[in-house]
Structures are given as structure tokens and as C-alpha cells.
């Protein structure tokens, strides 16, 4: 049986919208992945800068970096278009808060060890991999 022109146009329209929305979602998710990778790199660099055994703790520099991190996470959460990703970003922000608190507590007392820095980075990489579904 042949479909009418109206039915065929409706079908083509629905198909076009579906394809377009799929493309938008993929594009948005790719952008979101890049944001998460950028946050991962920021957090790893943060650990590299402050989890250094024997390094004198610079409270002003530490607080400035934490403020920079907070701003980055808040911006990422506000800009996230892929709504399912927002809770993931909130969880990553909670991890950043916990890392910063532990690092401050240890670094300010000169109690950073190489193993602490190394394990912290392993945790960061694992958590970000899970956030990206890997």
C-alpha cells in the first residue's frame, strides 16, 4: 500500500528531527566529556602543586587555587547542557572539596608523603574514568 504525501512528509519530518536531536546530544556529550577532562587535568595539577613532600605550605596560593577550582566546577555545572551529567559534576565537585580539605590538613602540618600524592592521583583518575563511563 502506498502512503499518502502528508503521511510521508510527517514521517520524514519526524525522522529528520530524530536525527538532528541525536546529533545535538552527541555533540553536547562530547563537549561535556571535554569539560570533565579539563576538570580532571586541573585537579591532577592541583595535587602535583601542593602534594609535594617537604614543600613549605603556602596558604594564600593554596586558597587561590581552591577558589579557582570552585569557580571552574560551578561554571561547569551551570553550563552543563546534558542534564544527566549534572549530578556527576556535583559528585566530582564533592570529591574536589574532599581532596582539598585533606591536602590542606596534611600539607599545613608537613605530613605529605610520596605515597599519599600518588594514591590521591590514582583516585582522581579512577573517579573521573567512572564519571566518563569508562
Amino acid at each position: 500500500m502506498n502512503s499518502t504525501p502528508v503521511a510521508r512528509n510527517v514521517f520524514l519530518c519526524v525522522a529528520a528531527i530524530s536525527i538532528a536531536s541525536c546529533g545535538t546530544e552527541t555533540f553536547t556529550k562530547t563537549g561535556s566529556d571535554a569539560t570533565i577532562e579539563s576538570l580532571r587535568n586541573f585537579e591532577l595539577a592541583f595535587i602535583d602543586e601542593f602534594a609535594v613532600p617537604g614543600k613549605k605550605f603556602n596558604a594564600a596560593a593554596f586558597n587561590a587555587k581552591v577558589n579557582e577550582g570552585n569557580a571552574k566546577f560551578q561554571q561547569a555545572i551551570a553550563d552543563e547542557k546534558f542534564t544527566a551529567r549534572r549530578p556527576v559534576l556535583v559528585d566530582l565537585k564533592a570529591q574536589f572539596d574532599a581532596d582539598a580539605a585533606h591536602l590542606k590538613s596534611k600539607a599545613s602540618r608537613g605530613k605529605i608523603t610520596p605515597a599519599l600524592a600518588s594514591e590521591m592521583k590514582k583516585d582522581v583518575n579512577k573517579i573521573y574514568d567512572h564519571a566518563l563511563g569508562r
Partner: protein
Amino acid sequence: MPSGDKKKRKKPSPKKSELDSALDQVGDESAAAAMKEFQDLLREAEGDASELVRQNADELERRLVLLKNQEIDKEDFDYFVENQKRDLRVFVDSQPAQAQERAEKLTLHVLEIAATKVVPVLIAMI
């Protein structure tokens, strides 16, 4: 899921680990029973089909050895356990109802025993 994919399952090593050697030295009967329960659960987790369960067990064992060797302290250990718990809660909750109990036993419960029973024993050995 903690059981299913058998391809990646790791065979428990017959060789004694550094942690086993330390825990086997525990003389007190009740503490030794708790250590045995922990070691059995850890071996079971390390041989589980789920990569996340195995990864958690490997991390826990590595960090207990770091604690014993004083490369990290108890504050660090507790902080890492909290990180692991935070990451695992999502995994346990996402398991089918019939698999949740086992997943919890091999992840969150193992971490709890490590923090409350194994760590004090290891610290006392230092």
C-alpha cells in the same frame, strides 16, 4: 554485577601476600578470627567477576600495606576509604536486587572491616 562475566576473573594467588604474612602473625584468638574473616572476604573480592569489585579489593590491600609500611598514616587511609565508599555506593545501588547483598559484602563491608578491625591491628604492629 558481581557474578556473570567470567572472562576477566582473576585466580586468587596461591602465594602469600605481604598483607597475609602480617595478618597471620596475629596471636590473639578473637582478633585472629576477625583477620581470617577479612582475608577470606578480600580473596573472594579479588576473584570476583566484576572489575570494580576486584579493583576495590586491590586498592584496599595496597593501601593497608602502605599503612603498615608507614608510607601513609591512618588519616590518609581513612580518607581513601571514604573515597572508595563514595565511589562504590553508586555501584552497589545499581546492582539488581538479588546481587546487591553480595556486592555490598565484597565492597563496603570489606572496607568497614578493614577500617575498624584490621587497621588497629596493623598499627599495633608498627
